[in-house]
């Protein structure tokens, strides 16, 4: 494989030779000039044409997927290996840096934001990110058809020649890559000793006589064509694969279909692809599950792979058979598929003005960002806010308390110590929160505008509806729908903290605000009673209305406030929450909180669920707590995590109970459900850190005990046999 430390100098040279043209044309011309040099790799397990043009060990990266960039390490290695070209390389590099204009970028940024970001309060910005392009546009029309369509659109938007030229050149570049695939397949066939593999290479070469220029005609040609475009896009997220591939699938016999799917699943795993979505409803709530959906789920269950993330969309008419298959897959231990609820997701999307016809075409990219397949740029983590850290600065007059000397991040909006009521404190907290949002959104918008200028993306513009039709690039507001997303972190930790204050200071009046803030400043040292009261006050995730209502108020406030903020691409900001393994890091960067978290401790809420170990009333209570949020507000995936052992799913009864649980959550307003399968490793961790795993309950008929209450040898026994449901 010849991808190590490639320079992509053809790209860079052509880019600069055409400096009189529009940016997007220069980039497309560069892509065309480079196209012939893209290595095509047929991995043994897949025998699919993978085109890794954007691997990060290239010195210059360009925008099939990542955007223009310069990779210092790869560049230096390349220069070392080719000392005679040193000067030429350096001048290209300087041009590249000048183009990206990092200096200007830096100067454009908001100073207050930089302070916030450096203090882990929030993050905001822009990047190329994930997308859900409609690959089928090219599969259906071929590049010839696309070129004709591009001309058609050009006529309607006469002043956009640069953009349309660039899109057309990109299609030419794709043809070059297609020829390159054919050439490589023929070469491989010649050198291949194995008869079967040789025949396969020849078959691929045959297919690439017609594609990508002409429309695909069966599953085989469609998969080959898809795979080239998909890997050029850095093998990101296949989206609603069972929908757009079905017309080819049904033209092909099942044995061939299955073989192709198996090859692709190996490929998804190999390329670490992001998100594949199956099933769902149309705008009339008809179920869209088809044989391809079932085949994908079955084959993914067989592989046991956890890549890509598998999303299963459910709704009022999801077939029972699909639910049962999904549970079998979840039981394997990967926790996949993640379950989504059309009833809430579509409502949330429609609140943004997306039509029902389009909202029902949603799918996921990345971990769980929601996009409308081939129609939207819904933003991709344009930012994150740590709600717990915001509470910290609110309680300490705008100071970050993580260091021996507190660091002032902003002028205080008021003194928390002087709050006379809980409502007053909450109002103060919202002032801080809104301000952090304002700053973060401004920064994200500046960064978006900057990024848009230097990184137009022709391939996404071609594959996402609206761009060609309007003559506007994907990053610049071309797609039919344009919004942005900010993710929340530390939700439950914040709600538990606010409840502890409300209870201990304002209801029971056991402590004063001064005492509480002092104790936090001291990281609870020598405040044993207060610490104990904070630690043992009620927590989110147990279906306790007093705590849950605060949690809902904070989150609903945030989600609604965000929607008042305009995004640079058009549209608005919306909220989401999918913290996953970032939670611990956010915990470490947050000082002592009134929920009893000490400075330095990393136990922090994962997504919208409870702080680990705090939801001790079982999954129904955890779910009821989560139902108190208005889940039709956030549009970026509002992830609920539940923990079960595989053994719950061992019996039909357990499987049914799980399905009832999930359906009940969804019928009552839940958006998403991820199952965290408690495995041996988790239980071993629970033995070491019982605090974080207090919620694990061992369930046997007529008996229940918290796992952490068991004697150690019995815990070992449970771990070894794993036959009890937890």
């Amino acid at each position: 494989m010849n991808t190590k430390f490639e320079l992509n100098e053809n790209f860079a040279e052509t880019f600069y030779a055409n400096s009189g043209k529009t940016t997007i044309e220069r980039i497309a011309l560069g892509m065309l000039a480079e196209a012939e040099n893209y290595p095509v790799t047929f991995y043994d397990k897949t025998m699919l044409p993978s085109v890794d043009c954007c691997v990060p060990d290239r010195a210059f990266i360009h925008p099939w997927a990542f955007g223009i960039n310069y990779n210092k390490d790869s560049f230096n290695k390349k220069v070392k290996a080719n000392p005679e070209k040193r000067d030429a390389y350096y001048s290209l590099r300087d041009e590249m840096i000048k183009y990206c204009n990092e200096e200007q970028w830096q100067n454009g940024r908001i100073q207050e934001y930089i302070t916030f970001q450096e203090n882990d309060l929030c993050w905001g910005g822009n990047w190329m990110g994930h997308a859900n392009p409609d690959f089928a546009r090219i599969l259906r029309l071929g590049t010839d058809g696309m070129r004709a369509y591009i001309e058609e659109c050009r006529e309607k938007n006469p002043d956009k020649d640069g953009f349309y030229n660039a899109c057309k050149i990109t299609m030419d570049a794709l043809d070059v890559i297609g020829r390159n695939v054919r050439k490589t397949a023929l070469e491989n066939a010649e050198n291949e000793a194995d008869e079967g593999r040789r025949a396969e290479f020849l078959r691929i070469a045959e297919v690439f006589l017609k594609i990508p220029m002409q429309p695909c005609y069966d599953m085989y040609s469609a998969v080959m064509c898809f795979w080239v475009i998909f890997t050029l896009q850095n093998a990101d997220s296949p989206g609603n694969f069972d929908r757009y591939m079905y017309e080819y699938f049904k033209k092909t016999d099942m044995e061939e279909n299955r073989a192709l799917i198996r090859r692709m699943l190996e490929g998804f795993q190999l390329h670490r692809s992001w998100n594949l979505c199956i099933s769902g409803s149309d705008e009339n709530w008809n179920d869209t599950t088809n044989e391809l959906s079932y085949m994908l789920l079955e084959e993914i269950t067989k592989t046991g792979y956890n890549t890509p993330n598998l999303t299963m969309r459910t709704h009022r008419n999801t077939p029972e058979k699909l639910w049962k298959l999904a549970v079998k897959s979840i039981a394997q231990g990967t926790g996949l598929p993640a379950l989504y609820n059309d009833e809430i997701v579509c409502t949330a999307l429609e609140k943004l003005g997306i039509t029902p016809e389009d909202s029902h075409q949603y799918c996921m990219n990345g971990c769980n960002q929601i996009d409308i397949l081939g129609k939207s740029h819904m933003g991709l983590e344009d930012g994150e806010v740590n709600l717990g850290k915001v509470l910290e600065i609110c309680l300490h007059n705008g100071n970050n308390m993580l260091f021996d000397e507190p660091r002032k991040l902003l002028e205080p909006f008021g003194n928390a110590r002087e709050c006379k009521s809980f409502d007053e404190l909450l109002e103060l907290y919202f002032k801080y929160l809104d301000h952090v949002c304002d700053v973060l959104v401004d920064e994200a918008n500046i960064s978006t505008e900057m990024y848009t200028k230097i990184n137009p993306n022709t391939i996404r513009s071609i594959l996402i509806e609206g761009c060609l039709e309007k003559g506007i690039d994907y990053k610049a507001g071309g797609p039919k729908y344009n919004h942005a997303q900010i993710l929340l972190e530390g939700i439950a930790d914040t709600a538990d903290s606010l409840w502890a204050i409300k209870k201990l200071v304002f209801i029971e009046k056991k402590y004063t605000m001064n005492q509480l803030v002092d104790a936090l400043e001291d990281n609870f040292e020598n405040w044993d009673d207060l610490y104990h009261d904070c630690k043992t006050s009620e927590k989110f995730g147990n279906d306790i209305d007093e705590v849950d209502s605060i949690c809902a108020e904070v989150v609903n406030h945030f989600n609604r406030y965000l929607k008042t903020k305009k995004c640079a691409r058009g549209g608005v900001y919306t909220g989401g929450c999918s913290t996953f393994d970032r939670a611990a890091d956010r915990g470490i960067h947050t000082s002592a909180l009134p929920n009893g978290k000490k400075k330095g401790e990393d136990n922090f809420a994962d997504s919208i669920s409870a702080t680990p170990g705090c939801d001790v009333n079982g999954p129904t209570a955890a779910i009821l707590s989560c139902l108190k949020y208005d889940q039709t507000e956030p549009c970026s995936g509002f992830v609920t995590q539940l923990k079960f052992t595989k053994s719950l799913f061992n019996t039909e009864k357990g499987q049914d109970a799980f399905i009832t649980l999930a359906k009940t959550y969804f019928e009552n307003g839940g958006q998403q459900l991820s199952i965290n399968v408690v495995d041996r490793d988790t239980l071993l961790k629970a033995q070491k850190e019982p605090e974080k795993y207090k919620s694990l309950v061992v369930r046997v008929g007529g008996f229940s005990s918290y796992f952490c209450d068991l004697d150690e040898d019995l815990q070992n026994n449970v771990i070894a046999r794993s036959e009890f449901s937890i």
Partner: protein
Amino acid sequence: MNAVIFNVQRFSVHDGDGIRTTVFFKGCPLRCLWCHNPESQSKEKQLMFYKNKCVGCGKCLSLCGARGVENGLKIDRTQCVLCEKCVNVCSVGANKIAGTEMTVDEIISTVKRDKVFYKDKGGLTLSGGEPSMQPSAALEIIEKAKAEGINTVIETCGFGNAEFFKKSAQLGATFYYDIKAVDRERHKTLTGQYNDVILENLDMLFSLGARVVLRLPLIPNVNDSKQDLYLLREFLSENKDKYIRAEIMKYHNLGISKANALGVKYSMSDENATDAQAESWLDMLGRDENNVVLD
């Protein structure tokens, strides 16, 4: 009306159909050798001390004379007055009290919280301990649940007042009814009581046409001798038209931790029953013929 309860467990999936909330009553007339809920036997509150969770902070030692033994790792239970100070001061939950008085309304309001999950199958389960030891409270709970449209399962040893069983059957309860041994002397040795009342109550439930699932706790080398199983098979065979199914409850050792926390002796094996044992029990009891299943 109050009931003494030691746990209300939501999302119970092993105590009847669907998703259920199980209310564990404290107090039991039997003393089964293998009891996995030893804190359920006495109706009185009890202190449970989970030694493995104790971090040795010593906070409880200074508050209590009963805690000074073996650096606090042992409790002089004759001195303990259940003041709960040690429970309140413990940050890691090593001290807990088993047993709390709850009003029927409190219990019902907790049970109601999960109503959306019950759908057509799930509901409320009364377990223990022995619900029939607190008949008035139990009946009031069943009645109030029924008024809410929530069905009730009663897990019972059957050793209780006939009137309770009759009334709860009339309220539509389903019974998960233990048969621990068929032979009356054997029953006395294993549980401390003869099984006459138990079998009479069961007959009455059968004659009322109540929904009954038999539960057969089987403990290797304790109540699974050839003779035990032979008698059990005969019993099942005679009554097979009257019960819904019979479920084998395989012995597990998880009760040991609770016994240790209570500071009481646990005389049973620390070996769980194996799958192979369970399979042979199923065969010997007639899995198809007598509709016997594993829980």
